[in-house]
């Protein structure tokens, strides 16, 4: 009974206390930063846009196109957490540029990219800034607004290339408005690309010529415009020839009338031309191979670099490129799992590893296979015989006690009738000789090459082995570099019939690469140059899509590797072109030229129907 009294007293006291204290608490909450604080100072705006830059759909080292994992703080796709180390889950390894952990073309459905929360944040920025002219000054507000238009264009570009037409929302929606107003209809694909174009025009005219590293300026906006308009032009031109029928297409939500192609190609060319004279190809080292390697590692003062994404061990955003592109043999931790294919290598021309009579050429060292190859190829891919951190890439698939006959006959034989000696580990010896190399090729696990090659581009060779660990790589990702801009311009030029301009751009790229210059180019030559220059930069996936060639290139496709063998009785090496050792099969369904509108969004907003064709 006494305890009940106590309870009553306690309740009375706490009610009294809370009623009186409520009046004192009636102040602006100190843990919420209001619009005046954020938009009223340069520091506030910087922190606000930093969050937007962090969310930009930049397909960098960490980009993972399959939608695995993720939460609000570290969404799928554009990973931004502290431990997104599996950098071999890249788009290259789903399309045969590399082969890797994906079982085939596993990424067609996308990961439900739907950044309207980020777009809302930009819309708030664009709405708020004009209210703060007194604190920020009019010229500064104009520049920041232009930056906002760039950021907004980037988000819409990330969606347009995936879905085609999406709702264009330019003002922050009021959550209290009727649901019918909040459920916005899709815009036509053409309208979305035109919107991106006009946003970028605002950015180009309004922004200054330079900016701090990692932040956009006039030329970054022009670079994005050349990339985006090239995409739109190809959708118009090639999407009108190779398409999937459906209501979304007949209503214009996917697909652009073919007659718009020329206009978009012209916009892409004009935008690329804006950067001429402002940037240049990196050419600091007369050694062409070393120069091309350093292009991706010497970022400060590099005239080719237009826009980068930066990483930091200190704040937990570092990537793991060094630890996941090379095998454990060269690193302090982790493993590699995706490997360049022979088809990628042979973009540079067929590797000549057989004699005229069809027998495999004999090599005294592995490195001899590199003789005569283009410096850019050798700088992009680690070949057998290359050296990293004092150790050799000693790729060796096995040992032939002796070898006779032609390469073609040998490769055609069933595996169990071939006379080679293979091994399940690097410790196995054949007459005192190690059977497989420390760096593979090997099928016991995924961690050694399955093709005979490793990625070299962006790998920091200066790091000591002990320092090559997960989440310890800080070299920035070049989101835009002048090399791409020249190739965008060349492709637009060739489509516009300006062959001489295309040739000029391609030859600039080629001479820096250490390749001979060409006397003439056609569309296929421009495209081929692009796939060589931009290999492993997450471009080829979108190139295949916008050229509408993915369903042809990936029609039950299988890829090959270059398998080095040691011929014991001759003390020589031979190289055989054989199916890559994952034995993956890649098939691209035509509907994958567009991703499906995310199912969760369709449930929230039925006005997003019709979904893209065949979903």
């Amino acid at each position: 009974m006494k305890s009940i009294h106590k309870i009553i007293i306690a309740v009375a006291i706490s009610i009294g206390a809370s009623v009186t204290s409520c009046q004192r608490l009636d102040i602006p909450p100190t843990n919420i930063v209001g619009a005046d604080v954020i938009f009223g100072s340069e520091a506030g705006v910087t922190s606000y846009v930093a969050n937007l830059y962090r969310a930009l759909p930049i397909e960098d080292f960490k980009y993972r196109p399959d939608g695995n994992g993720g939460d609000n703080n570290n969404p799928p796709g554009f990973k931004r957490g502290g431990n997104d180390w599996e950098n071999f889950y890249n788009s290259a390894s789903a399309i045969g540029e590399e082969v890797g952990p994906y079982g085939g073309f596993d990424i067609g459905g996308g990961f439900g990219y739907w950044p309207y929360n980020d777009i809302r944040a930009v819309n708030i920025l664009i709405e708020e800034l004009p209210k703060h002219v007194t604190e920020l000054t009019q010229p500064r507000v104009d520049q920041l607004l232009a930056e906002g238009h760039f950021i907004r264009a980037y988000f819409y570009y990330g969606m347009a290339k995936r879905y085609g037409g999406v709702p264009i929302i330019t003002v922050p929606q009021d959550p209290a408005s009727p649901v019918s107003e909040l459920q916005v209809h899709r815009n036509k694909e053409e309208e979305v690309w035109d919107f991106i174009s006009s946003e970028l025009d605002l950015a180009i005219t309004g922004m200054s010529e330079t900016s701090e590293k990692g932040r956009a300026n006039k030329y970054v906006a022009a670079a994005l415009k050349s990339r985006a308009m090239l995409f739109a032009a190809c959708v118009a031109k090639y999407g009108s020839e190779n398409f999937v029928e459906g209501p979304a297409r007949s209503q214009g939500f996917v697909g652009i009338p073919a007659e718009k192609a020329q206009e978009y190609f012209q916009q892409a060319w004009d935008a690329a031309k804006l950067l001429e004279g402002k940037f240049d190809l990196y050419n600091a080292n007369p050694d062409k191979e070393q120069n091309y390697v350093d292009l991706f590692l010497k970022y400060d003062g590099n005239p080719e670099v237009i826009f980068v994404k930066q990483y930091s061990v200190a704040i937990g955003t570092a990537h793991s490129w060094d630890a996941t592109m090379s095998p454990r043999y060269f690193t302090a931790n982790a493993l590699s799992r995706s490997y360049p294919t022979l088809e990628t290598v042979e973009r540079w021309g067929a590797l000549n590893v057989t004699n005229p009579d069809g027998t495999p050429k004999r090599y005294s060292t592995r490195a001899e296979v590199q003789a005569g190859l283009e410096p850019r190829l050798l700088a992009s891919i680690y070949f057998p015989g290359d050296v990293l951190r004092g150790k050799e890439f000693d790729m060796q698939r096995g040992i032939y006690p002796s070898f006779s006959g032609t390469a073609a006959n040998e490769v055609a034989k069933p595996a169990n009738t071939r006379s080679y000696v293979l091994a399940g580990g690097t410790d196995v010896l054949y007459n005192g000789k190690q059977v497989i190399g420390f760096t593979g090729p090997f099928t016991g696990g995924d961690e050694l090459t399955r093709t005979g090659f490793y990625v070299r581009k962006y790998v920091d060779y200066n790091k000591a082995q002990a320092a090559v660990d997960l989440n310890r790589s800080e070299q920035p990702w070049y989101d835009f570099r002048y090399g791409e801009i020249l190739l965008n311009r060349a492709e637009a030029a060739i489509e516009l019939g300006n062959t001489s301009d295309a040739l000029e751009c391609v030859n600039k790229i080629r001479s820096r690469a250490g390749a001979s210059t060409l006397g003439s180019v056609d569309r296929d030559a421009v495209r081929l140059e692009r796939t060589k220059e931009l290999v492993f930069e997450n471009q080829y996936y979108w190139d295949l899509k916008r050229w509408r060639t993915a369903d042809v290139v990936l029609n039950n496709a299988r890829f090959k590797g270059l398998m080095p063998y040691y011929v014991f009785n001759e003390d020589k090496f031979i190289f055989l072109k054989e199916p890559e050792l994952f034995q993956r099969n890649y098939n691209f369904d035509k509907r994958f030229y567009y991703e499906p509108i995310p199912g969760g969004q369709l449930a929230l907003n039925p006005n997003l129907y019709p979904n893209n064709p065949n979903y």
Partner: protein
Amino acid sequence: MKKQISRLLLLGISVLAVSACTKTDNYEGPNASFEGRIIDATTGENLQSETGSTQIRLEQQDWETTASPQTIPSKYDGTFKDTKLFKGKYKVVPTNGGFWPVYDTATVDIGSNTQHNFEVTPYAKITNFSSELVDGNTLRLTFTIDPPVTAGLPTLRTIQPLVNITSMVGTGATIRDYSVTERLNMNGKAFAELPDVSTDVDVAGKTMTLEVPNLKRGTKFYVRVGVQWNDSFASWNLSNILEVQVPNE
């Protein structure tokens, strides 16, 4: 006092428990079924099919929100059947096969044992399909590609033998070395440009041969041929399936 409180608590808990149980799942289970045939309108026979080819696409109309579409794959004999559907009104349309697109979607009330047949016009019929063994273990396949309608026909993608050791032989169920590696890439060639090896003017369409060398001896194979078109689905027309016994040496 204590007793009263505990009784009150007990009462409260039982009220909560009873109210929590009052809502039962009174929706019917997926007890409706839908089956039928996909018929070649030019012959009245079932369209040659496979798993992963022609599908029946269903969109439920009487659901409270827009329902996600579902599909029923067809079988090798050109029939389809799904016995685990929810009862309701569905828009149904055959898709993803080697036939001219069907735009008039039918609406069907699917209940127990609902039957519905679809008539489609194939891009091409594959007729006169025959096989012979030459040199012991090379298979020569002869067949005629006969499109009922040639105006507006999609371009060709591949022409390919399909070989398997079970009777389940289709574009995704083959032995690769006897099938995909032996395909003819047509690269968008028009049907009219195809050569015709037959001199018999009475045979409509284009007659072709394909060879599959080095078949494993002493093995029984199931074989058909497929023609793939550059339409929305990269769809296939398939022949009937033949059994071929490759003898020992």
